Structure formats: C-alpha cells, structure tokens
C-alpha cells in the first residue's frame, strides 16, 4: 500500500483536482475532512461523466442548435473536463462556436471558478483496515468495480491506499518467483 496519499477536501476546486491528478499520474483520490477523516472519493470518471450527461440532455431538448447563451446554462454549475473537451467535437458538427471561444468562456466561467470536489465526489466509499489481508483488496475492487481502496484506521483517518496497479505488481511479484521464461 502507498502511505503518502494524495487527498482532497470537499472545498478543493475541480481545476485544482484535475491538475493534481494529472501531475501525480493518478486517476482518483480520497476526500477528507479537516481531521483527515475520509468523507468520499473523487475520480476522473466522476469528473468526466457529468458534462457528457448535461450535453446529452441539451441535445435532446435541441438547445445545442441555438446560440450558446451562458456557460452556466450548459454546465449547470457542474464541470466535467473530459466532457468539456468533447464539446468541440459535438458542437463543430452543428457549426457552433470555435474551441477558442469555448475556452475563453471556460476561463471566464463563474461556474468553473465555483465548481468543487463536493459536487462530483462519491460519498459511499469502500475502505479497508490496515490489518486486513492484501488479497481482500482485489476481491473488493472486483466486486465493486473500483480502482482504489483507501486504507483507514479505527477512526476513519486515511492511512494509506491500495490501487489496482499495486495489485498487478503484487501478482507480478508472486509469479516472478515461479517458472523462468
């Protein structure tokens, strides 16, 4: 397990969360309160699905065909970065604004400035205790279809994290001691 755990708070801005995840090369992180107790998890999938749903709704209502009124109307105060990048593709097909204009709106968006981890995170977190066996992590990841398990102590403080890539390395180590290739 990794002990130097990247965490966010509910108030972390979405943009800061994206930058941190990108810089550290990870796809998600636990969200903690001021005492370091776990309150949720945020992943790039949470960040990603939001606006895709929003733009699908707008397409159904045929609102993407008209002039874009405000960024807030599109994002409804939420933010999805990958989905945002996909807007260019969706909108160019309807001959709407260029990506430069969209980025300008994005930079000036009040919704973006306000969007926080709290809006997209999952509060139901699957966790493990440090004394539980490593293979339990694999079982939990498979059962819940998740990629990371925060390790918490008796008071729910985050003390570590196990990711799917850690499981792969553990299997590799176990197999490595076997037949030589």
């Amino acid at each position, binding site marked *: 397990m990794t002990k130097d755990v990247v965490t966010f708070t509910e108030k972390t801005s979405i943009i800061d969360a994206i930058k941190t995840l990108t810089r550290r090369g990870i796809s998600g992180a636990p969200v903690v309160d001021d005492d370091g107790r776990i309150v949720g998890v945020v992943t790039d999938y949470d960040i990603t699905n939001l606006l*895709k749903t929003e733009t699908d709704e707008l397409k159904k209502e045929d609102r993407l065909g008209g002039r874009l009124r405000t960024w807030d109307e599109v994002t409804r105060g939420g933010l999805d970065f990958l989905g945002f990048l996909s807007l260019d*593709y969706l909108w160019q097909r309807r001959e709407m604004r260029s990506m430069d204009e969209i980025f300008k709106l994005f930079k000036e968006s009040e919704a973006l400035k306000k969007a926080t981890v709290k809006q997209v995170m999952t509060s139901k977190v699957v966790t493990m205790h440090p004394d539980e066996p490593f*293979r339990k992590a694999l079982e939990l*990841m498979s059962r819940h279809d998740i990629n990371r398990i925060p390790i918490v102590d008796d008071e729910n403080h985050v003390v570590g994290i196990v990711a799917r890539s850690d499981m792969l390395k553990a299997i590799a180590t176990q197999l*490595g001691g076997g037949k030589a*290739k």
Partner: protein
Amino acid sequence: MKKASEMMVPREKVVTLKPDDDIREAVRRLASNGVSGAPVLQGDRVVGIVSESDVTGFFEAARKKTKGTATTSIEKAAESKVSSIMTKQVVSVGPDATLGRVAHLMTDRKVNRIVVTDSHNSLLGIIARADVIKAGLEELQ
C-alpha cells in the same frame, strides 16, 4: 487543437502483447512497464486490448473458482492465453482525430485508452485518458 498523432504514445514506445502470450507474460509486461493497458497485435494489426482490470479481474475469478491456495490458483491462471481475456472490440481513431473527438469517444464508450491506427488497422500509437486530460490542460493554459 491537438490531433491524435500529437497526443499518442508512438508505436515504438507502446507496450504490446500477442494473442498467444500467456497471462504471466501480460502481467510481467504491464507491471514492469508501469502501463495500465496494452494492445494485442497479430503482426502489426490490432486484434484486441488487455487492461490491468482485465488481468486482475481474471485472477480474482480464478481464485474464487478454485478455492485452492492463492498460490496454486494464480500459477495455474497465469498459463491461460492473452486471447482468452482480451477485449476484441477495440476503440480506435485515425491519426488526424481531434482532441475533442478522442475525449468524446472515451466518455461515450467508457474506455480508458484508445488505439491510433491507419487504414489497415495497423497500430500507430495509443492514447490513454491521462494523455487526453493533459493535452486538454495544455490547450487551456
């Protein structure tokens, strides 16, 4: 706006597998290269893709089935072929696909990696979710 060819990890750096490789080799290659997925090639052509989720899910299923000691089930499972766990429906784009299109495909098809291929389905490179987000952030700054 960036194109697929500018965002991808180029062919020579892509970790790949063959359909007849055993899973032991898949694990070794994914873990030692620190990648979360690998295209499966027959010659130059992409015939499938294997992710670390496919691999860990497979081992978990094997462990549950055999109920033997964890060691024996893992060793036995490792002998299976990559072709038996790979996803055959691979999401791909051409080298001129835009950042927007790649982002849309990843969101729409719920995949974490997309292969870049030419008109003969030969592998040109691979784009992972993190590569798209990074490219998007660079465009934004």
